[in-house]
């Protein structure tokens, strides 16, 4: 089987990329999705808050997904469901499998859109027993929203990520009790609007600078021990308190899903956990593009869609031989409180009129400048209020800014002279 472009993953990223690849002139576009329906993680996010940027209205996850599923259908994009991609290679050969067998597909371009997975307890090594009743927030979300089962009656949530906070509210609405949301940091990791709408409105305490130091219960969770932590995240002796509960939910981070990328020898950024990409959302392997949570974890689906449209359009340009590759790479680096920048490297010739840089900060900055430099020379600066680690920054920059830039692009957060 041959396709102009094959998109792996049918979440919002995959849908966006496929639609845009088609729009940009490719005739045979395929999405491969391992679930029985497209839509990705959105299908279990039945709360609203999706699409504010793109549609200027608040949709639920499934509603947002449906708009793109409909577009994909209209555009005659092939979708293989209940089919898992098991390997990809540098020369863009794909192996996939479903209940009718194993298929091999050659692709003009591949777009990786496999999303991310949740970090589990093992990754954070909470000591104590290993009973039933410990779930990642996303798993609990699936049980409650899709299967229709409750995971517990008295719940403690570790981690202040968005899914954790959303699940806190969900459990209360289902008649359960949430003792507290425990954050290891001095700020909530998720969106401020979720702190307000999911915790404050329901009087669920958010315990900042705390950690679970032990889980007890031989068969089912019986209690957990919680303690305060200092600036170095070490437990402050004497602050330990034991809480009875039957369930612990973990919302301790998401990891881009990159087994397939590794199989193809794609370079992975340790910081984001996703592929290193260029201005065109192309990975280190020519013709393999990536977008959405597989590249870096997004908090807003609107940004996923925008990023994936770029990846899809560029995949089409690649197949048609339209990406201008003459200029050398400039490499982006971050400093002064910024934790990463996507894309990782830029070619001036291949850039479109505008470039979106996606950035995150390490803590809360009430007022700051994002400064872009080429070695010593300042190219641009942008004022930002209220940057928080929970909210990804999208910094749009005109192509012309980079016109005479040559070396390495430094992106720095500056707070000097500001309060």
């Amino acid at each position: 089987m041959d396709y102009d472009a094959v998109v792996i993953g049918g979440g919002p990223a995959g849908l966006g990329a496929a639609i845009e690849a088609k729009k940009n002139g490719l005739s045979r576009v395929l999405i491969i999705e391992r679930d029985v329906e497209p839509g990705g993680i959105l299908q279990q996010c039945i709360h609203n808050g999706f699409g504010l940027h793109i549609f200027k209205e608040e949709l639920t996850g499934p509603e947002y997904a449906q708009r793109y599923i409909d577009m994909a259908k209209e555009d005659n994009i092939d979708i293989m469901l209940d089919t898992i991609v098991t390997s990809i290679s540098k020369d863009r050969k794909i192996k996939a499998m479903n209940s009718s067998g194993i298929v091999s597909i050659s692709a003009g371009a591949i777009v990786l859109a496999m999303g991310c997975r949740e970090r589990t307890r093992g990754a954070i090594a909470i000591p104590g027993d290993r009973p039933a009743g410990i779930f990642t927030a996303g798993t609990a979300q699936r049980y409650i929203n899709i299967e229709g089962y409750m995971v517990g009656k008295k719940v403690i949530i570790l981690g202040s990520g968005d899914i954790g906070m959303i699940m806190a509210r969900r459990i209360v609405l289902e008649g359960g009790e949430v003792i507290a949301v425990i954050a290891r940091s001095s700020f909530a990791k998720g969106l401020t609007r979720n702190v307000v709408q999911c915790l404050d409105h329901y009087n669920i305490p958010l315990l900042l600078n705390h950690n679970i130091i032990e889980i007890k219960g031989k068969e089912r969770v019986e209690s957990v021990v919680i303690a305060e932590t200092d600036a170095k995240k070490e437990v402050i002796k004497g602050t330990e308190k034991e809480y009875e509960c039957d369930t612990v939910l973990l919302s301790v981070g998401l990891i881009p899903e990159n087994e397939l990328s590794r199989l193809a020898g794609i370079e992975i950024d340790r910081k984001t956990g996703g592929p290193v990409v260029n201005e065109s959302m192309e990975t280190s392997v020519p013709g393999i593009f990536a977008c959405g949570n597989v590249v870096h974890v997004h908090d807003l689906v609107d940004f996923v869609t925008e990023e994936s449209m770029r990846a899809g359009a560029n995949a089409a340009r690649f197949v048609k031989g339209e990406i201008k590759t003459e200029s050398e790479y400039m490499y982006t680096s971050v400093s002064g409180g910024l934790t990463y920048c996507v894309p990782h490297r830029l070619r001036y010739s291949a850039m479109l009129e505008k470039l979106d840089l996606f950035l995150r900060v390490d803590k809360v900055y009430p007022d700051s400048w994002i400064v872009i430099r080429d070695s010593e020379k300042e190219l641009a600066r942008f004022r930002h209020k209220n940057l928080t680690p929970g909210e990804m920054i999208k910094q749009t920059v005109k192509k012309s800014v980079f016109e005479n830039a040559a070396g390495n692009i430094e992106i720095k957060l500056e707070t000097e002279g500001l309060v």
Partner: protein
Amino acid sequence: MYDIAIIGAGVTGAAIARELSKYDFRIIVLDRENDISCGTSKANSAIIHAGYDAEENTLMAKLNVEGNAMFDRLCEELDVPFRRNGSLVVAFDDEQLVHIKKLMQRGINNGVPALSILSQEELLKREPALNPEAKGALLAESAGIIDPMLLTISMMESAVKNGVHYRLNFDIESIKNKGGVYILESGGDEIEAKYVINAAGVFADKVHNMAAKPSFKIKPRRGQYFLLDKIDGNIVNSVVFPCPTKMGKGTLVTPTVHTNLLIGPSSDDLDDPEDLSTTDELLEKARIGAKLLVPKLTTRNSIRTFAGMRAEPDAGDFIIREAEGAPGFFDAAGIKSPGLTAAPAVALYMVEIMKKSGIAFTAKKNFNPLVKRKLFIDMSESAQSALIRGNPLYGRIICRCENITEGDIVDSIRRSPGATTVDGVKRRCRAGMGRCQGGFCGPRVQEIISRELNKPLEEVVLEKKHSYILTGKTK
């Protein structure tokens, strides 16, 4: 009435059951847990030891070396993953260099094959990630790694195929002898047998004392581990030990047969043989110990921490004999490390002892030694395609970390003894063993169990009887 009742479905009980199933006996294996391999046999270092650790002229030394030699054939017959990757005991100073030579001599005395001392250069060539300050090491080429749960499960399966019965959730509370017949009682339920074999692991002293006068004590000693992601699985090639101390063999670093990396165990004495909790302090010790061997090691990619319980006998050696004053009651007790390695030899030894005590053995003509269990992922592509054609469930991957299909999961439920719990599936086919630890596939495995066993979803438990996962329907 049974001829033989075996108490304990750990690796010891399973090995004995399989060995005895070669003969004409009515046999039953009893375990208090809801699945087999739920005791020490599920949480250990998974090493098939060479046999230089045990003191000369002990039962442990003899059965370790004999057991080790049996693994190639055993694992071939039972389709259990096993790899002789060799073990190293690393010396960091002159004193330790002397010690590894002593170990080597002990090994030779015990009959261990293929021992040698590696120079610093040879050592670092074999294991480039090792601490460059290492001075040399004892290499034992016969040591290997295995999946201990699959070993136990496959041995039980083989026994069951050859006519052995089993009963789970049978927690023996008392043993009586009425006119030469043993009556084993659990919650009012009774099972009768002419002969009893006590392979009750950390509880072997308690079980012994139900039938005979106390003659030994088992002390529980806990060991904690980190299991790291496959990304780190090839940091070392061999099983790497530091020089041993009084408390045991020390923190080791080893790949597992499934290409993860295992670090541990720590060591602490406890009163509660069922306290398998992990503690920060001891895990930290294990981590530091491992770093000493392999400096670049971090536990950043840890996917699970766990603990196992050693059954330390007060006498120091394995206790395998007919209990004094209780004719027909046989102990296989104090089976501490290298109990996994020794298991098949323990079983042979048990047969010898039973014969000596006058029990008549008649060999079966139709004993079938084979158990087949290949996972979809381990097959060739043409075999995979054929399998999907025959059963479309093999075309659906449920555990995406380990690439385990629905076909594999259903198979592990339908086998005998089959999986009835989410962890039971995991032990049999690795669904949920990977880096997301069942986060994604757990609910699906639960659904498949519910469907296959015709049991409401809420009644499917994670592991032990009361480890319920769900608390009811949503509003």
